[in-house]
């Protein structure tokens, strides 16, 4: 048995685990990160699955990585390199298309071909969303409020939040209420008239959830699109040079620089307990490692029902955790291409350097959801495509390209049961390619390699329970002080000395790093480590 006594062991080398490790190491603590796979990053990973082609296998764009984490951990010095997305392209099956550009004037021009009024409203819309984004920012950058607490410190921070509300004009209050309660489509209907604009905008409300664009509560997620920041510039989304794993590697390099030890291919069998106290971990190879504190970078179900064991949990906690919804709804198809794909509706490449949405109409999206509700993957799914090789020469050989397709809906819970996914994997991949073919007629001829990830694969390979990319649905009832469950949103858990630093904790999923950083800060503040 290894004798080393660590201040903290971090289970899982995903980006949040690494951020947490880096913060603790920077504060002088002796920390060890244990990652099951041979690569770091969890779902924020770059993998060369076909020689010469680097896939951002899961997470494929970066926007919400907190700027203060970038500064605190000096990530640019350790390899963080972001390339902004230049556009959002919507091909349509009837030969038309709409591209929204980072240049607002250009976007107005394109949108005005569909509706001059919408082109005009775009500026007002992004202004309104940016104002609300400013209100949400402090919430995602600090621990979740505890509304039931009478602790003076809690009250002060609640009051501070309250001030944001009371300062708001009636218009802004109204907008917030609508954003919190409406469906993405209903909300956008209030601003715009052209379906070609609303349809691709509405999908940001459903990504990673088992909801449709007409489901109430999806409007809120639209906001995330307006909170994306790179280098402090709002509304920007970017590619990590070298693939999304570049972000994880930069965080890992920073953590190592500050003294953290990181081991790959070191899967955890279970968390060692002494009564209701965590004392270390047992590796899959049987080794036992002891630490004063254990931090989980895994999702809540995997952490508590998998690594701790339900029998060791207080029953009320276990019950509410069992109600925490995952319901993975998406898959990925990664392609190595012999050349740049050509969209029949708009030849050329200027519009391929951003993201591309296969979301031709709201009915199309809703129909895709309908199929998923009854346990089959969408026959014609929503696909969000990026071709990072158009701006990053390191991910594919010259002239060749990698194409990442995020696909929704692919329900984890197939009608036949989730374990039937492996036999449906290739059919799912074929559906995606057939859909693409309607826009890129020769796509099948230029595919060199295809990598299909179903929700089942996301669970089995990447440890994402039920294939949920956010460690649990990012719906309002599972956010802030209710993430993962009410009363346990401050990274502590009912198991003493066990902490949750993953996307299953506040402020949730996406490549933010905030749960990891806020967990480390909470631990240091509580002097537990």
């Amino acid at each position, binding site marked *: 048995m290894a004798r080393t006594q660590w201040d903290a062991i971090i289970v899982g080398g995903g980006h949040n685990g690494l951020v947490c490790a880096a913060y603790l190491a920077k504060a002088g603590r002796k920390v060890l990160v244990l990652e099951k796979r041979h690569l770091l990053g969890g779902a924020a990973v770059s993998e060369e699955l076909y020689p010469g082609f680097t896939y951002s296998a899961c997470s494929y764009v970066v926007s919400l990585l907190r700027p203060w984490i970038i500064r605190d951990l000096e990530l640019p010095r350790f390899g963080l390199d972001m390339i902004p997305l230049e556009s959002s392209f919507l091909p349509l099956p009837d030969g038309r298309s709409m591209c929204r550009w980072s240049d607002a*004037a*250009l976007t*107005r*021009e394109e949108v005005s071909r569909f509706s*001059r*009024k919408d*082109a*005009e*409203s775009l*500026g*007002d819309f992004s*202004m309104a969303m*940016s*104002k609300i984004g400013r209100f949400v920012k402090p919430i995602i950058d600090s621990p979740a409020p505890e509304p039931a607490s009478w602790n003076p410190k809690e009250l002060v921070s609640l009051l501070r939040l309250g001030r944001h509300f009371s300062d708001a004009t009636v218009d802004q209050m109204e907008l917030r209420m609508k954003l919190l309660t409406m469906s993405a489509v209903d909300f956008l209907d209030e601003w715009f008239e052209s379906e070609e604009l609303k349809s691709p905008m509405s999908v940001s409300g459903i990504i990673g959830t088992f909801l449709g664009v007409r489901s109430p509560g999806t409007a809120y997620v639209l906001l995330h699109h307006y909170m994306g920041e790179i280098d402090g510039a709002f509304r920007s989304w970017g590619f990590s040079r070298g693939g999304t794993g570049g972000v994880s590697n930069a965080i890992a390099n920073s953590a190592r620089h500050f003294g953290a030890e990181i081991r790959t291919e070191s899967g955890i069998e279970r968390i060692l307990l002494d009564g209701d106290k965590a004392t270390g971990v047992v590796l899959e190879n049987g080794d036992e490692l002891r630490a004063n504190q254990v931090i989980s970078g895994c999702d809540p179900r995997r952490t508590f029902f998998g690594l701790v064991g339900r029998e060791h949990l207080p029953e009320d906690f276990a019950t509410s955790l069992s109600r925490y919804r995952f319901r993975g709804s998406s898959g990925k198809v990664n392609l190595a291409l012999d050349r740049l794909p050509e969209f029949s509706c708009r030849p050329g490449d200027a519009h391929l350097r951003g993201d591309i949405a296969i979301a031709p109409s709201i009915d199309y999206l809703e129909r895709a959801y309908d199929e998923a509700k009854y346990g089959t993957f969408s026959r014609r799914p929503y696909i969000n495509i990026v071709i990072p090789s158009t701006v990053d020469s390191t991910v594919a050989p010259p002239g060749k390209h990698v194409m990442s397709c995020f696909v929704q809906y692919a329900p984890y819970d197939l009608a036949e049961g989730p374990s039937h996914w492996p036999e449906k994997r290739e059919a799912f991949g074929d559906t995606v390619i057939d859909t693409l073919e309607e826009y890129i007629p020769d796509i099948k001829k230029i595919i060199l390699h295809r990598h299909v990830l179903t929700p089942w694969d996301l669970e089995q390979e990447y440890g994402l329970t039920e294939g949920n990319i956010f460690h649990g649905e990012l719906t309002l009832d599972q956010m802030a002080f209710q993430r993962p469950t009410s009363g346990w949103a401050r990274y502590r858990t009912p198991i003493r000395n066990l902490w949750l630093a993953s996307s299953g904790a506040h402020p949730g999923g996406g490549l933010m790093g905030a749960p990891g950083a806020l967990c480390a800060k909470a631990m240091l503040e509580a002097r537990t480590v």
Partner: protein
Amino acid sequence: MPRPTPFHPRTAELCTSLAYKEWAGCYAVCRYDTYHDREYYALRHQATLMDATPLYKYEVRGANAVDLLSRVMVRNFAKHKVGRVSYVCWCDRDGKVLDDGTVTKLDEEHFRVTSADPSLAWLERNARGLDVTITDVSREIAALALQGPLSRDMLRPVVGAALDDLAFFRAMPVEYAVAGRKVPGIVTRTGYTGDLGYELWMANDDALLVYDAVMESGAPLGLLPMGLDALDVARVEAGFVLASVEYTSARSAFIEKQKSTPYELAFDWMVQLNRGPFIGQDALVAEKQSGPSRRLVGLEVDWNEFEAIYEGFGLVPHLTTETCRLGVPLYQSGRQVGYATSRTWSPMLKKYLALGTVEASAANVGTKLEIEVTCEYERHLATARVSPMPFFDPERKKA
């Protein structure tokens, strides 16, 4: 990428500087030569021709057209006669300015509105229940600004002698005599230079014909094409505010402080309060009573003090020839009371001028303020006095 206006084939040929900027989605020439001086002097001594096509333009037609405009804008159009042009601003319901532009009454039930920002959605939203149709003609109608003391003489051969009777801020339908035939359009005696001048409106298809006719007619009298740099100097001399420079539209303001009321912009003269309801009326009535907390003012920088600052470094005073739009603080007895938004050297008046916004108590003509002057990366102060506007106001403008 911006789009070319219908005049682009001509202006591109003349624009040897290749200095363009984007204006409302169009290519707009900043200056034709490397420096804009020649264009500026031509404007004040002869005349210049500028492509004003990028302005947003809307046709408002119908029995309730006058009701819509009187409801949306701070002026009442009920008694306006056909042929009248009005400079006007419009506000949100809190009385904060959204945009400014012109309204031309072309016929009893037909108006044309110009604006700096797109305004179709705003007009339509407020037209509910009214018998009115609003058409965005921004891309169907081309516009030229022919400005300067000889502009009338240059335009007369193209549109006829009736031009001599066109009064200041009036419009008339014309037939442009081009290449042996006539094409219809509108001429308004308006402009953004504070000089005698006209704006010429025509269908896109006729744009080049009219351009050639005016250039041909004006050439013997010294007509030059003019870009936005020279205009920017002229409009400060004329005391004209520029949206997004002197004020931020309430639509794009992040915070309340960035918004302005018409009274703060010294648009008092255009606000007509005592009439039927219009957007922002309650707030404006209240502000009229309490008085605005700040005012837009004209400023004249004390040249001797400005020169002395440079002399202190062994330098002669230096100003860029373009209007500078970088805001600088204004102080009164050491306390900041406002900011200057546009600063320019006026070659006609031989004065260093500025437009700024200051606390109301510091806004009276003659008030002595201090403006920040940065010389050799050091900050200094020079006296700037609140001055009557317009700075440049030749008789010929209205004659």
